[in-house]
Every structure is written in structure tokens, then in C-alpha cells.
């Protein structure tokens, strides 16, 4: 079950400058664990000590914010696209 993950600039150091990687995972939680296995350091950047997503980390599955879905439990299927994005100012 491979999912495409878009990596934001601040995390590209961990992926050897790759802006896009493929990772397995049935849901976001698993995906984060597997990202950590492939690219050590990922997990502590995305989640706090309690394993909850940090408040400035936004994750999207096929363009949908997971806070509108089932948060970390949001399920993934083959071919899904996950985007990790820091909070952005605007106006």
C-alpha cells in the first residue's frame, strides 16, 4: 500500500532533498511511523512527546485537511497523496 507523500522544504533535509517520497501505511499514524523508519527524525518533528501531531503541522490526504477527516486515524489506500505542510500566513 504505497502512498505518495509531499515533503515540505523544512523537512527535505531528512529526505536527502527529495520533495516527494513513497511510504506505506494504512492510516496517518502508521504513515508517520514508517516515515520515521525510512527517514529518522521525522516523527519527533511531526508529533509531540505524547505522539500527537504538533499544532503547526497540517496534513492533507488528497487535498483534504485531516482535521476534517479522522485526524491521525484517517485511513489511507493505495495511490493516495499525502501532503505535509507547515501553517501559513495569509491575507
Amino acid at each position, binding site marked *: 500500500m504505497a502512498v505518495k507523500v*509531499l*515533503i*515540505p*522544504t*523544512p*523537512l*527535505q*533535509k531528512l529526505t536527502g532533498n527529495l*520533495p516527494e517520497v513513497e511510504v506505506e501505511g494504512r492510516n496517518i499514524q502508521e504513515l508517520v511511523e514508517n516515515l520515521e523508519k525510512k527517514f529518522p527524525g521525522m516523527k*519527533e*518533528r*511531526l508529533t509531540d512527546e505524547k505522539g500527537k501531531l*504538533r*499544532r*503547526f*503541522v*497540517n496534513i*492533507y490526504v488528497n*487535498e483534504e*485537511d485531516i*482535521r*476534517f477527516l479522522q485526524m491521525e486515524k484517517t485511513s489511507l489506500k493505495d495511490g493516495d497523496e499525502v*501532503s505535509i*505542510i*507547515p*501553517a*501559513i*500566513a*495569509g*491575507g
Partner: protein
Amino acid sequence: MSYVLGLRCRECGRNYPPEVLFVCEYCFGSLEVIYDYARIRKVLTKEKITKRPKNLWRYRELLPLNKEPITGFFSGFTPLIRARNLSAYLGAKEVYLKDDSVSHPTLSFKDRVVAVAISKAKEFGFNTVACASTGNLANAVSAQAAFCGLRSFIFIPADLELAKIVSTLIYGAQVVAVEGSYDEVNRLCAEIASRYHWAFVNINIRPYYAEGSKTFGFEIAEQLNWRLPQHIVVPVAGGSLISKIWKAFQELYKLGFVEKPRTKVYAAQAQGCSPVVTTIKENSEIIKPVRPKTIAKSLAIGNPADGYYAVSVVKESKGWGEEASDEEIVEAMRVLAETEGIFTETAGGVTLAVTKKLLAQKIIPKEESIVICITGNGLKTQDAVIPQLKKLWHIKPTLESFMETLKEHT
């Protein structure tokens, strides 16, 4: 001459050099510009500021440029108006309007942030600037990029008001209308920003860009003769302006220009998009993103990046938050026009409508000083008010026709 020490993560406190960085690599917290206030204190005085040209660069020691600014020479120093007619309408004693509806050159407070962002982008050597915008930022970036000879790409939600689109295209910018909400435009831009070497003013230039909003706060203090108001009502979209007004007051205090800030800060949002106000009212730890549905499109950010900081400014200052319905927004736009002769956009309607509610609820006492932040111009959001306006009189070009019509209506 720069007084910038560096960038610092607002979440975990890690320090970074003042480069093209915008979030902490460790925790994704946003980065904030840190200054050497001890040195600024030695060189900057109120008298010195007062003698400088009336633009936002009069506070340049407190802005993050290394070189001379290249734009914004007529931006800032907008009127602070003692609004007597509006005071009477509201039944309040001392009401001021900080009026950025007449900001040069694009009629919103975004001229301030963009003056800093574009100057900084040029310093960093970029030749292309870009932004995701709910409209006002689009106007400001395209105008100032044109003036500075930079190429610009502007990403907007496709359903934006026509006036805001026209007043972006006219400067020669490439406008990209994205079929989605502003939050979707923002997400897309973050993805684009990590592929192209462009200065996205609200993404990779954000720490510098956001500092420009402080000048709105500096000016209020200066124009009140270096006093701070007891209350200030601020429109909130991403939550940057409200946080930076507070930072501005704190900085003036650090420099000894004003007394310890006791101003209560209030967040104003539209009912159809009020994630920050909801968090304040529910005293909640987390901000739930929303899908915006409001005529106040410039404030329609459902996932506010600086939302947590906006909430903490409100709490720290002992202020509050309130929201306005679409009808209340339009009503307030009319009230401001009919009492003070100022045509503000929907965001200004939100701010005034919220002020009125806070006064009615006695959250703001009516005998204390209040500043209402008017941040944009009504010519850009005419669609919102058209259904509410008086009907025209259609007549023939004869005196008779006019007199007849006048009689009919009186």
C-alpha cells in the same frame, strides 16, 4: 544599519540566522524576528521619529531590513481620526478610527507588510515574488512588484470579488485563479513554494513580511501622542495583524516610549468564519479549522496560521472576541459611511459591527478610549453593499421631471 539579531522559533525558542527561513525545522513553529533593543534604545528617540517623513519607514530600526528600502515611500502614516459622529452613534465617549482604507498605493494595510516583504525579497536576490491572497495582499504585491521591477505570480480563490481581481491584473501580474477556498490556495502555494525559487511573501518571507504590520500599531501610539488606547478592536484572518499590533505596543514600551501596555485587544471575525473567536469564547486549547462562508472574503481564512498567537494576545491583554453576521457587516459599512464619510470594505464592517456588540454587552465600557482598526477600502467589495443601497432616481433631463420626482419622494 540593521538591528536584527536573528530569527527565533515562537514554539520551542530555537534560534536561526536571518535568512530565507520561515518555520522551525524541529517543531514547525513560526519564526519571529528578534532585535537588539538595547542598541535601538541608544539610537532611536521619539523626537527623531517625529521628524522623519510620514511613511512606515520612520520606524525602520524596528523593521528587518539590512539595506535601504525600495518601496513603501508613501505607505503608512494613515489618518487616526477622532470619530465624533460615530461615537455619538455608538453612545461611546472616545472612539478613534485608524484608517488604512486610504493606504497608498492599494487601499489596505497590506501595503505595509508588502513594502517590507518586497524590499526584503530584493535584498535576498529574488527576481520573482508570489503570494496566496484573499485579495488585498494580491493588490499590494502586484502593485509594489511592478514598481520594483519584479515578476509576480498571484494565487487567489477563483470566487474572489471582481474589483480585487481587476486591481491585481492591471499591474501586469500573472493571476492564477484556483478552484478552491483560500485555505486550499494556501496549501497549494506551500507545495509550489517548495519547488520554485520564488519569494512567496506570506510563506518563505513571512517572518519579515509580518513585521510590517507593527507599523499600524506604532502609528496609533504616535498619533495618540505616545499613549496607548484602553481598547483596540482588530479584524482577524490569519491572526498576524493582531499579534503584531501587540508586539508593536510591547516594543514601544521596551524602548521607553509608552507606559506599560494595558490595552485590551479584541478579535473581530465574521460569523461564517470565526475559528479564533470561537476558540476564545470556548476557552479551548485547540483551534478547529472551519470552511468559511461569509461576505467578508478578505477575512475568510478557516485555518489561521497565527490563530494561536491571536488567541494568546487576546487572553494576555484581557480582551475578548466577537463575531458579526453578514447583515451586521453590511449595516456597519453603511453606518461608517453615513457617520464619518468613510467607505470601508467588509473587513471594516466586521470590526465596527463587533465593536458595537462589545459596547452593547458592556464588555467595552463606553467611557473609555477605543481604537477601531479600519484596514481596507469599500470600493473593492461593492457587491456586498449594492442590495442595501438607496434606489436611484431616474429622471429626464428637465427641471419638471426633477421637481416631480422630488415631490413624489417627499
